[in-house]
């Protein structure tokens, strides 16, 4: 910048926020509106999560914990639907419970939608226990008897009235826990249930949480990890049922490219401006 006059390089180092926002808005909205689906490569953590469910028998029961709310819905809801589709396709029974109160409606909606699609019967093939406060107390006590905290389901009907629940009492009767996490409850599942009851666990987490959850996967404390929208897209690919995960991946792909282009432009501008300033300084010294 010479005086107050900005040249080309100055301008590209300080692109207005509004322009960046508009471009990001376009690259996110267009692929979703067009319904573009991109092919994703399957990563080992998601493959492990898939195999954990694939290894179960039709008589087995999985417990899905909804530990997220609408803010994380775009990433975690596709995972929920993909996992439910996989489980119901294999005739695995599903118990759903909620630790985030605002996750209850979205969990219920997802469970109902996929169960209807596969013609599953409530109380025989799946059950919704609803929300209970007390997180760690609930987790620990469910190892003794689920009914200590969940005497009834989400509709306030006693659990024993459902045929599916008659022989299910604690973690011994649950083959696998699937935690869909937007907060710290995934760690609680690992620390309080995985280590104490030797329970098999897979986690689905938001993209930003994937980094801190990886060590648990490497140490074998969880069997599989589905990270962010990409994880959801990979799971959809594995079960061969494209959904929002794959559509969202196209938007994410385009957005990442846009961000990388912005970073490159910013750096080119930065180096050119520095070079120019250096030249001006040298010229000034010579004068």
């Amino acid at each position: 910048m010479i005086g107050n006059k900005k040249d080309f390089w100055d301008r590209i180092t300080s692109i207005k926020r509004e322009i960046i926002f508009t471009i990001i808005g376009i690259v996110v909205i267009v692929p979703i509106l067009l319904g573009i689906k991109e092919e994703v490569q399957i990563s080992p953590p998601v493959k492990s999560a898939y195999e954990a469910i694939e290894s179960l028998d039709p008589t087995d029961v999985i417990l899905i914990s909804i530990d997220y709310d609408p803010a994380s819905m775009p990433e975690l809801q596709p995972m929920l639907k993909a996992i439910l589709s996989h489980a119901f396709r294999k005739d695995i029974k599903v118990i759903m419970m909620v630790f985030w109160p605002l996750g209850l409606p979205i969990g219920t909606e997802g469970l109902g939608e996929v169960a209807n699609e596969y013609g599953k019967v409530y109380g025989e093939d799946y059950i919704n226990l609803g929300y209970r406060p007390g997180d760690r107390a609930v987790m620990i006590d469910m190892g003794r008897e689920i009914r200590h905290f969940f005497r009834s389901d989400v509709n306030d009907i006693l659990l024993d009235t459902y045929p599916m629940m008659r022989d299910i009492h604690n973690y011994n009767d649950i083959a696998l826990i699937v935690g869909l996490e937007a907060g710290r409850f995934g760690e609680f599942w690992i620390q309080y249930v995985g280590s104490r009851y030797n329970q098999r666990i897979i986690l689905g987490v938001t993209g930003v949480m994937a980094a801190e959850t990886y060590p648990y996967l490497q140490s074998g404390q969880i069997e599989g990890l589905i990270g962010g929208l990409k994880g959801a897209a990979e799971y959809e690919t594995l079960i061969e049922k494209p959904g929002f995960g794959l559509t969202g991946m196209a938007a994410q792909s385009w957005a990442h490219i846009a961000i990388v282009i912005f970073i490159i432009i910013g750096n080119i501008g930065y180096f050119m401006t520095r070079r120019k300033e250096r030249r001006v300084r040298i010229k000034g010294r010579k004068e």
Partner: protein
Amino acid sequence: MKKRIPLVITFITGFIIIVSFFIPHRPFGQLETETLIWYAIIFAFTLIIGVDSLVRLHVRQIRRRKKGWWYSIVFFAGFFYCLTIGIISIIRTPNPFQPGTAFFYGYETILIPLQSTMFALLAFFVASASYRAFRARNIDATLLLIAAVIVMLGRVPAGYKLWHRLPAIADWIFDVLQIGAMRGILIGVALGAVAMSLRLILGIERTYLS
């Protein structure tokens, strides 16, 4: 006495939780569950304190006509709306989140769009912040910049199309470099938590009493 009773309660509860982790059988297992239930109950009371503090803050904002005071009116509108329809829905049905209830209507038409919007805004701010912050000013910043670009591209299908080895490099950064650093942070945090817990249980750390 005022200080001794909380110290004794802290010591007993801390002791129960630690022992029950290693001996989860009776009576420790049972005591642990009871303690955690108490924790949940006390936590519920802290929510009341939170609400009280929030209401006081916004009342003050409106009274003093501070900058943006009308946002406080929006807060009160939302607060009383949720409170009223929440109570009505709980009286009418065991599950206020059931479709058809007024609470569910508010949840579906107000809360979901608002929360989703707030989260979606992150994408825009991340883009803007990345553009401004990721400048190769020195070697550290350059390494961070390179790692960020590789991970950003390697984690999306476009990265694979650009160069088929990019996802593998991104996975390596995640599996080796990132996990090493993250594990160090996690162990550090855990050790800090253990040290602080011991100080609390043994009554060395007493700042929470003041």
